[in-house]
């Protein structure tokens, strides 16, 4: 299997990349880590006439921390989430999820932005960004805008990104409470496989141990990662185990999972309830331990 022929450009600057996308319209496809796009090109499920390779745009590969908020260039490799201590300190959820994204070789090339714009419903990063309430910075040759993770994922492999736009940076905001914890849990058939179902959570507590911030995301169960409404009910309460179990169950009742070769819809819903509770309880334990 080999890709169909295409013209290749390797811009060095974001503006140059945006000009190429504007000039070539829907013919053009940006290439980031290539761990999803190139398999699709090899199988000829994707046949872009023009490939705009972003890998030489150094400005897209920066990791910065500003006033507690983490800014990841879209081209930051998934491996960097594991290795870069700044990521672990500012957004430990990302560092914990990273080793579960694909395999060593795919993480070495695969990028944070690439995973987000590919928007596979079973992928870890879109779910984590939704749980972290991340803000995506999008640019085209015409305009720059921001989009919250909650508004970005629109459907199966579909996002708010327009054909001439690039996701250039992801901002993970600083926690709003002093004591914050995260939790991540997923079930996959093998290490590195896409999750059959997964859950991630972020909880923030006040000094008295009362929950002031609660986000739980279930993924792998529908077309887009699902921000559970049930988690909001935890705000104002103490995150005791029975409440977290109940929240997990209520969150799972909100989703309408797919059935496929790997799992039935009932199985996914059942497991989602347990994983949701697990992610919340890990988040609660960490938040309680935080000072």
């Amino acid at each position, binding site marked *: 299997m080999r890709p169909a022929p295409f*013209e*290749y450009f*390797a811009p060095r600057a974001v503006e140059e990349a945006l000009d190429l996308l504007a000039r070539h319209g829907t013919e053009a496809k940006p290439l980031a880590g290539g761990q999803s796009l190139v398999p699709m090109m090899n199988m000829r499920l994707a046949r872009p006439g023009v490939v705009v390779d972003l890998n030489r745009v150094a400005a897209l590969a920066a990791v910065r921390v500003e006033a507690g908020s983490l800014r990841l260039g879209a081209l930051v490799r998934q491996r960097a989430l594991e290795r870069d201590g700044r990521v672990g300190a500012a957004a430990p959820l990302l560092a914990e999820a990273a080793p579960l994204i694909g395999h060593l*070789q795919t993480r070495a090339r695969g990028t944070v932005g690439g995973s987000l714009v590919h928007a596979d419903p079973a992928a870890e990063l879109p779910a984590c960004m939704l749980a972290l309430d991340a803000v995506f910075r999008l640019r085209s040759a015409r305009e720059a805008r921001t989009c919250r993770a909650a508004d970005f994922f629109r459907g199966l492999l579909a996002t708010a990104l327009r054909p001439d736009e690039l996701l250039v940076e992801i901002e993970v905001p600083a926690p709003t409470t002093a004591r914050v914890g995260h939790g991540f849990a997923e079930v996959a058939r093998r290490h590195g496989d896409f999750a059959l179902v997964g859950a991630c959570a972020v909880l923030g507590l006040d000094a008295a141990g009362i929950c002031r911030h609660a986000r739980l995301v279930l993924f792998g169960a529908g077309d887009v990662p699902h921000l559970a409404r049930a988690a909001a009910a935890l705000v104002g309460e103490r995150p005791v185990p029975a409440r977290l179990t109940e929240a997990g169950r209520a969150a799972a009742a909100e989703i309408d999972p797919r059935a496929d070769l790997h799992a039935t819809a009932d199985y996914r819903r059942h497991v989602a309830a347990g994983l949701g509770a697990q992610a919340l309880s890990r988040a609660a334990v960490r938040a309680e331990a935080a000072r």
Partner: protein
Amino acid sequence: MTAHAIRLTVNGTERGARVMPRLLLADLLREEFGLTGTHLGCEHGACGACTVIVDGEPVRSCLLFAVQADGCRVETVEGLAGPGPDAGLHPLQECFRARHALQCGFCTPGMLMTLAAYLREHPSPTEADVREALSGNLCRCTGYQNIVVAALDAAAALRAAGVAR
């Protein structure tokens, strides 16, 4: 379609080529440079047989266009044993041989290159670490047991030699 002139270092030797954009790095290595030790199994990034090391990172050479490797340092299985016919096998290769960590051998180059890169960064892995590191490399013969044992032996041998080759 426009061909691109590229220069890259392969196993320490600088090489040049004119490539069409759609040429995969695996095909450049095999067809243009005659380095057929890099094997192509699935050709869509699932099996790991084509793993080579690019600028220190293990990558799937079926998912990287040759043009993208312009200016890069590429290591393939042919470079593992060191230069010249008298150079001994790399400790990983020795341990794979000693532990019978291969049967048909098709997946072996990818296993070796993944482990070579991994052990440089993680010289003292546990068995679980090795299994996780190899999760992207499929073997249909061995059941993995002897591959994991060989990898642990090789890690110990490399530590004892005090060199991360």
